[in-house]
């Protein structure tokens, strides 16, 4: 195993390269932002004024986050296969560094998206969050989980004849524990329930993130080199 | 009314298993056909 420092350096260079390519083509950014904003507008236009309870608005927020992820987070691997640059990358960098670099790209992309659309969502749905700190923490922890699952599943479908639908179908069952806990936690945060009630969700989200991240790092090598 | 729900459930399970076994049997028959055809071809 390369020493930890060079592994992180290589992961960083892979991340830099992908960021560079992304700013040149802006394909994933366009896909994910356009999807999120259009969904947001349609949702708020149709049911915004209805003044729905947190119990409905919290799952709705996470549905938007999940499907936004599904519209843009597979591109990081699919692009490599489509442009036949995956072998070049396979040749020059170890599998772990590549997974870390790609994971970081997806996490930054998804969280960057949320920084824009979550406040918009709260405004459009005139939803007042009583416990903003807990709310932000749940969103962050949940998004890290979602981007981890999206990254490993993106690697899988990039090696299959990747059709868009396959990405959501494969990701959903694995992401379910995150969605269930995150929806529950977000609802609690909006309603301003005491922190102790949200502890369960934090623990599940954190434990799941650790487990799925470790499993992904271990399994990635079997996806990357068949 | 209660009994027939139980009966239906019982039947559905065994019909499902039976159908699957029938499907496997069909597969074995087509494999046999392929094998015989192949053997005939190689003898020629």
């Amino acid at each position, binding site marked *: 195993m390369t020493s930890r420092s060079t592994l992180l350096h290589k992961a960083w260079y892979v991340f830099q390269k992908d960021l560079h390519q992304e700013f040149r083509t802006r394909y994933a950014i366009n896909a994910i932002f356009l999807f999120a904003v259009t969904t947001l507008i349609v949702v708020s236009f149709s049911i915004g004024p209805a003044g729905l309870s947190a119990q409905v608005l919290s799952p709705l927020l996470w549905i938007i986050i999940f499907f936004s992820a599904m519209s843009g987070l597979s591109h990081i691997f699919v692009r490599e296969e489509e442009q036949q640059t995956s072998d070049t990358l396979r040749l020059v960098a170890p599998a772990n560094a590549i997974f870390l670099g790609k994971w970081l790209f997806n996490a930054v992309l998804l969280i960057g998206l949320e920084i824009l659309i979550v406040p918009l969502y709260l405004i459009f749905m005139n939803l007042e969050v009583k416990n903003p700190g807990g709310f932000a923490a749940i969103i962050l922890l949940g998004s890290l989980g979602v981007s981890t699952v999206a990254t490993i*599943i993106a690697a899988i479908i990039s090696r299959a004849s990747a059709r868009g639908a396959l990405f959501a179908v494969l990701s959903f069952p694995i992401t379910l524990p995150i969605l269930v806990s995150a929806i529950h936690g977000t609802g609690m945060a909006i309603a301003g329930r005491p922190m102790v009630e949200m502890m369960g969700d934090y623990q599940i989200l954190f434990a799941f993130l650790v487990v799925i991240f470790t499993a992904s790092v271990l399994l990635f090598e079997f996806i990357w080199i068949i | 009314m209660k009994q027939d729900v139980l009966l239906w459930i019982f039947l559905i399970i065994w019909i499902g298993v039976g159908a699957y*076994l029938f499907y496997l049997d069909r597969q074995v028959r087509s494999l046999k056909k392929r094998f015989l055809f*192949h053997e005939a071809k190689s003898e020629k």
Partner: protein
Amino acid sequence: MLKNDRPWFHGFKIFTFVWMIFVIIGSIKVAPEATGFVSTSRVVFFHVPVAWVAVLAFLVSAVFSIRYLRKKQMEDDIWASSSAALGFLFAILATVTGSMWAKHEWGSYWNWDPRETSIVILLLIYAAYFALRSAIDSQETKAQLSAVYSILAFVTVPFLIFVVPRVIFTLHPQNPIFTNEPKQRMTPSIRWVFFASLFGFTLVYYWILRLKVDIERIKQRMTEMEDKS
């Protein structure tokens, strides 16, 4: 060709057949009207084992997937995919019979009871597994990627079992119709028939799995022969 079939398998088939006959007779004959044991609860002798086999098949598939990644033997992939195919069938049966029982017992076909939710999630995992397999043509890639996916799903299941019941309560706090598990109130005779049925269905599962694995093996040999000629 294939090594001669296992001689014990013939005996196994007879034993399983006879065992299931006793289970079916037992499930009808067992003393009804035990404490709170309503006659329709007899369904527990069939619905629950089917769900159990669906879960068992998933675990077996995950184990063979791990073996495949370690040793890359096509044999392991055959076992993993065959077990998953069976698990898929039993998951469908469990879902259908479950909702029929729910309709009769609680009045509605579906009400997101924790067990209903978890069996449907298992169904989703199987559907995703086979969607992935059908999207890949190269044998080696198909085996490897589906093995990875089944391990990922396997890692997720404990969280689902832990998370789903906990949250379902609070999502539907006004869920009065959640009845506790009829099994706990079983008398010894009923419990005995129930476990016999559980064991019986596991034998049936193994029987069909054995058939399916042998068919896949022969199919593989056939294509190899046809490729050669």
